[in-house]
């Protein structure tokens, strides 16, 4: 397939997944604020500080808005076209990529992306947004699910589909690492201990934001403990939003494209991904916590970026020194 098409498949998929995950991250924070609504412990800048931190967006935000307020932060992450990570920017970028490869994707996939774009552009979404953020963000998440379901059900699972898988898995692994990291940035009110009530409520919110509550509880019989939650979201082998799961799927997609066995590598993307995968396979949550959870999550994000750069270099940028057939 065309290198440009592979690139567009990859980014279309990343942007849709990003829109979904950003909706999740914002929703989890809004949810948490509701839980502590009657406690006037936090100032608005403290409430939204974690979100700006996990997106590394504090500077960009402050260049556009004079102060941190819920209303402005939500606007910044939802509709603001100047923020490349706002929902609108993500959906628009996904659609631009989809437009460039319309003949490669099914009409159903295109219509799904186009519908959510037109929805975000129209008056109805603004009304929904001011009417209640929870339902609004749910809708974004559902649209992404619909797109992914339609993709699986209507598109040939060939090379282009594998690029879509890779985009989805890299983005999702990255987002889960950021979602867990939100907890690192969340402050505990004075007098609250780690492992205390507020701490647990915060971890529960993180689980919910990954749609992981039920799956987690089945495994850990009703006990929500920080280390167990981190273990589940980072290292679980079967939960589709855990980082390890994403790394495995990403690895399979890479090897499906090259046809090389998974215990070898044929390019830098496969090498980096193999290292990430085996690291996640053979580490424990105790090790991670000992060396620092936040630092570990940071390194996950860095490795995913390396894989992304390497696969772009291998497949999506044609280099003049290649031999012609």
């Amino acid at each position, binding site marked *: 397939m*065309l*290198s440009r098409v592979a690139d567009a498949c990859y980014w279309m998929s990343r942007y849709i997944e990003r829109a979904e995950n950003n909706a999740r991250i914002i929703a989890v924070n809004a949810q948490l604020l509701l839980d502590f609504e009657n406690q006037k412990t936090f100032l608005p800048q403290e409430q939204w500080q974690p979100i700006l931190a996990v997106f590394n967006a504090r500077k960009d935000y402050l260049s556009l808005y004079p102060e941190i307020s819920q209303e402005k932060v939500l606007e910044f992450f939802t509709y603001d076209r100047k923020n490349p990570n706002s929902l609108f920017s993500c959906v628009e970028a996904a659609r*631009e990529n989809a*437009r460039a490869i319309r003949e490669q994707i099914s009409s159903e996939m*295109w*219509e799904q992306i186009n519908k959510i774009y037109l929805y975000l552009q129209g008056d109805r979404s603004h009304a929904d947004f001011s009417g209640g953020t929870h339902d609004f963000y749910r809708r974004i998440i559902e649209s992404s699910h619909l797109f992914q379901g339609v993709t699986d059900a209507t598109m040939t699972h060939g090379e282009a589909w594998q690029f879509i898988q890779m985009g989805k898995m890299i983005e999702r692994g990255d987002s889960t690492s950021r979602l867990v990291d939100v907890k690192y940035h969340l402050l505990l009110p004075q007098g609250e201990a780690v492992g205390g009530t507020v701490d647990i409520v915060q971890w529960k919110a993180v689980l919910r934001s990954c749609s992981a509550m039920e799956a987690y509880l089945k495994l850990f019989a009703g006990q929500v403990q920080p280390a167990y939650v981190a273990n589940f979201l980072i290292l679980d082998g079967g939960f589709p939003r855990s980082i390890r799961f994403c790394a495995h799927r990403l690895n399979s997609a890479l090897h499906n494209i090259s046809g090389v066995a998974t215990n070898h590598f044929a390019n830098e993307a496969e090498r980096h991904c193999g290292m990430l995968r085996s690291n996640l396979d053979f580490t424990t949550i105790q090790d991670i916590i000992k060396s620092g959870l936040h630092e570990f999550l940071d390194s996950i994000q860095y490795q995913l970026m390396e894989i992304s750069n390497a696969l772009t270099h291998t*497949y999506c940028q*044609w280099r003049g020194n290649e031999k*012609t057939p």
Partner: protein
Amino acid sequence: MAFGFDGYQTDGFFDESFSEDGISREHYRQLVERFRKMSPEDFERKRKLAERSYLNQGITFTVYNDNQGMERIFPLDLIPRIIPAKEWDVLERGLTQRIQALNLFLRDVYHEQKILKEGIVPAELVLSACHYRKEMEGFDVPHDIYIHICGTDLIRDANGSYLVLEDNGRCPSGVSYLLENRQAMKRVFPKLFAQYSVRPVDSYTQELYAALRHVAPGRQSDPHVVLLTPGIHNSAYFEHSFLARSMGIEIVVGGDLVIERDKVFIKTTKGLQRVDVIYRRIDDDFIDPKVFREDSCIGVPGLFEAYRKGNVTLANAVGTGVADDKAVYSFVPDMIRFYLSEEPILANVPTWMGMREQDLNYMLEHLEEIVVKPTNESGGYGLLIGPQATKAQLAEFRTALRANPRNYIGQPVIGLSRLASYCDGEFEGRHIDLRPYIVSGEKTAIIPGGLTRVALRKNSLVVNSSQGGGSKDTWVCDFEEDKPC
């Protein structure tokens, strides 16, 4: 006025659907009855349904300099145009004859130039045309086909006679709307299709693909065909991707192509892959910055040389624009007589040519009564409709005409035929034209009907999408013994 056709006015124009006394024409009778019985709410619901599906599918075109946003729907008017099969058969023969003559003409002007030497067409007119490509001289294109895809514009005058308005032999667009219109109409009015026996149109993309494969260079048994687009910001991008999708071929931009040893390749995830045929939707000027416009960033450097070496086929061929120069156009009937020794089946619109002194004087004297068109423009840009022009516009054209008579032609104002259309809750007559699509491959294939464009603005004669036009589904219908079956 009530919903329906009571009080429908033909206003002295030839109306496709109603005769002057307000009675619906035989072949429209069932259709009119169906719409009469429909409640305004029902009609509005169907109209919204069609509009919504166009928007969701992204069946849009781009308007430049429009603050409303870049993409717009090309509105579909729900009343179809009906052409009885008998009438269509004549058009089909006329168009086939015309495309044959045009392809022979192009072969001739880029080789022996017999038609110029014999003075049938003035040599200076052809050689001075801005779309004449000297680079094409002496080059043999596969199977002598220059115009693979043609979109000839037909209109009907006050008597209902069909006239050729222009031959679009470069990169005619619009066929995707025709195909999508049919899909939409079938969804919205399934029963009507059962009542009329409408000739299907969906073979178009197959015919097109076959024609493109037919002209592949060499003995290539399984040629690699791609569609070259200027990119997603082009106004016709929807159509480009639609056609590529329907043919199952790749759509490429200039940056996807690379030329090595005068051969064309696409850059893929597995290295370079050879390309044999390019259905290009980029004008000659922009196709290769090495040969044509240097500032083109959508073309491919070296493409023309690969083409001239016979390593790749371009459709349409380079240089076809000389045949749809509006001044050369007026000689098509002579070309038909010259190359085919036949009488033209389809007539041209009478045309005055700026280059003839007598014609020029006539045009200058009668400017406020006639239409003046620049010879090299398309899309309805830069033309003057005398009776609707302001004094300043008339003065501007008078100056331009005197300065550059070669670049202008004049034509009488034709009161384009009208057809009932839905406008603000009522049915009113609106002017229409017809663009059939002609594909030249191993044989000439014309899909039944074509794209009927309608000027939805009241009294407007300009049907172009960029100027407030819409479109209609076009039905070529077989009637038993001239009666609707």
